[in-house]
């Protein structure tokens, strides 16, 4: 009986691992199988030509640049807000303070809000402020979407920090700010992970940018212009009746996946480089 249990549980665990790997391989396999033949140099270097969605010449450079601009802007906004907030609730407020409890609870709620709700809220906000669908609108809305993701994962790591280091720093006569600067270095790998999670989520989200960033075949040159995004580009291409265009959608999906992979590996690389001088 004892050994049977062990065996069954082992099978369950290995099965779970196999399912996860299988799903990943299946997804990647599908988009590569369908998209790779359509993935040409033209796809990533040119904007859609006339009749692109009906099968003529062009690429998705508009969506690539749009997505990169939006996620960069959103990342900057959310870093500027989430890093100070996490530092505040972890290193400035006392350990069991009511305020930090309230802040964490609000973050949990924000974390669970679906992206379409952020999209709708962002849209309402833009109407109120008199901004039309634009790069700026997309940046703000995606920023709102990824902020709680970033804060939560950063907070998780900051909370797990042992008290030794802050105590050592304070007893050397550091101010809280000086202490926080050192602790932030310690948190760097965690910050990288947080950024990665947030970017992965933000760059792939369609619902937030649907109303707020709009869509265009051109590369945006100012914050007031609408911006295309890869998820929406994939959506429009998949909606085309022409099979060739549908295959281009898969090629765009490859591009999106590769962008996320590049980000992921570079984040790993930088955080390990940073850690060399640390532990």
């Amino acid at each position: 009986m004892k050994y049977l249990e062990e065996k069954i549980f082992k099978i369950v665990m290995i099965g779970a691992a196999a399912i996860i790997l299988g799903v990943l391989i299946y997804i990647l396999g599908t988009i590569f199988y369908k998209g790779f033949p359509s993935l040409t140099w033209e796809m990533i270097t040119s904007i859609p030509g006339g009749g692109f969605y009906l099968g003529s010449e062009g690429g998705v450079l508009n969506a690539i640049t749009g997505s990169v601009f939006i996620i960069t802007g959103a990342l900057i906004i959310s870093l500027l807000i989430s890093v100070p907030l996490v530092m505040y609730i972890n290193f400035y407020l006392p350990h069991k303070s009511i305020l930090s409890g309230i802040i964490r609870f609000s973050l949990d709620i924000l974390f669970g809000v679906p992206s379409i709700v952020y999209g709708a809220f962002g849209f309402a906000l833009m109407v109120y402020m008199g901004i039309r669908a634009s790069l700026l609108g997309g940046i703000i809305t995606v920023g709102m979407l990824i902020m709680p993701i970033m804060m939560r994962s950063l907070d998780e790591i900051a909370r797990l920090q042992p008290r030794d280091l802050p105590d050592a720093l304070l007893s050397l006569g550091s101010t809280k700010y000086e202490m926080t600067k050192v602790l932030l270095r310690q948190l760097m790998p965690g910050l990288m992970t947080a950024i990665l999670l947030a970017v992965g989520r933000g760059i792939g989200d369609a619902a937030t940018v649907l109303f707020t960033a709009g869509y265009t075949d051109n590369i945006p040159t100012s914050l007031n212009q609408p911006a295309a995004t890869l998820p929406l580009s994939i959506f429009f291409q998949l909606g085309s009746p022409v099979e060739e265009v549908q295959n281009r959608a898969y090629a765009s999906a490859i591009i999106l996946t590769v962008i996320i992979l590049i980000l992921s590996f570079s984040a790993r690389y930088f955080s390990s480089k940073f850690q060399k001088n640390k532990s």
Partner: protein
Amino acid sequence: MESMTVNRVRETDRTFPLKKVVYNNTIRVENLDVFIDDQQILKDINLSIPEKSITCIIGPSGCGKTTFLKTLNRMHDETPEVRVKGKVYVDDLNIYDKNVNVIDTRKKMGLLAQRPCPLPMSIFDNVAYGPRIHGIKRRKAINQTVIQYLQYVGLWDEVRGRVRSSASRLSIGQQQRLCLARGLAIEPEYILGDEATSALDPLSTKKIEELFVKLKEKYTIILVTHTLRQARRIADYIVFMYMGKVIESGPTEEFFNSPKKQLTREYLSGSFS
């Protein structure tokens, strides 16, 4: 006063700065009560600690030794559930007075924690951290300070070629000496040790103990320890605490050879610990 010492470091090439004797370097504690939430941890402590000597605080676990030590550099400020009542005079200044700067107080008190906690940076930067945050900018002065204190704790020869590598690669005994050097580099006037050798092997313990004995010429040292033998080896004065109260205190010889209180005798004979 701070700049005075800095100048001296610059003038004298790589020699340990002699501590200035400006004040009578003593700590005087009057009617000290410490509460955590509603529980009283320290009860009416009255104590004065002699300068330029080693005072060991002994007592069973949970008797408030560490709490008392934290009172001396105001680390309780960081935990709002702790309330401190009473007066702690350091150099005739009550450090719990409203207009006393907590940073100045901590700068005066070098703390050596139970487990060494090197900062996440290089060996060099660990020692340089204190002088840097306290306003020393000149690279040459910092270099000198770092080398001097690493030499002082006997670490310089061991790490000479790799001061730029990460401090966490050092052995735990080396780390503790590094932490001591780091604490000394902010030029404190007192050294507080919270069971500073309990995580170390016997050899490293011996090195740290020897350093304490060397340091007492210039600093007033207060150590919390739970090994009686250590107290006997290095202490000049002993304070015995039990259940948040000071039961007995006195010079080491006298304390061990002719304890006055029954409780002390029982503790020394090992009836409880």
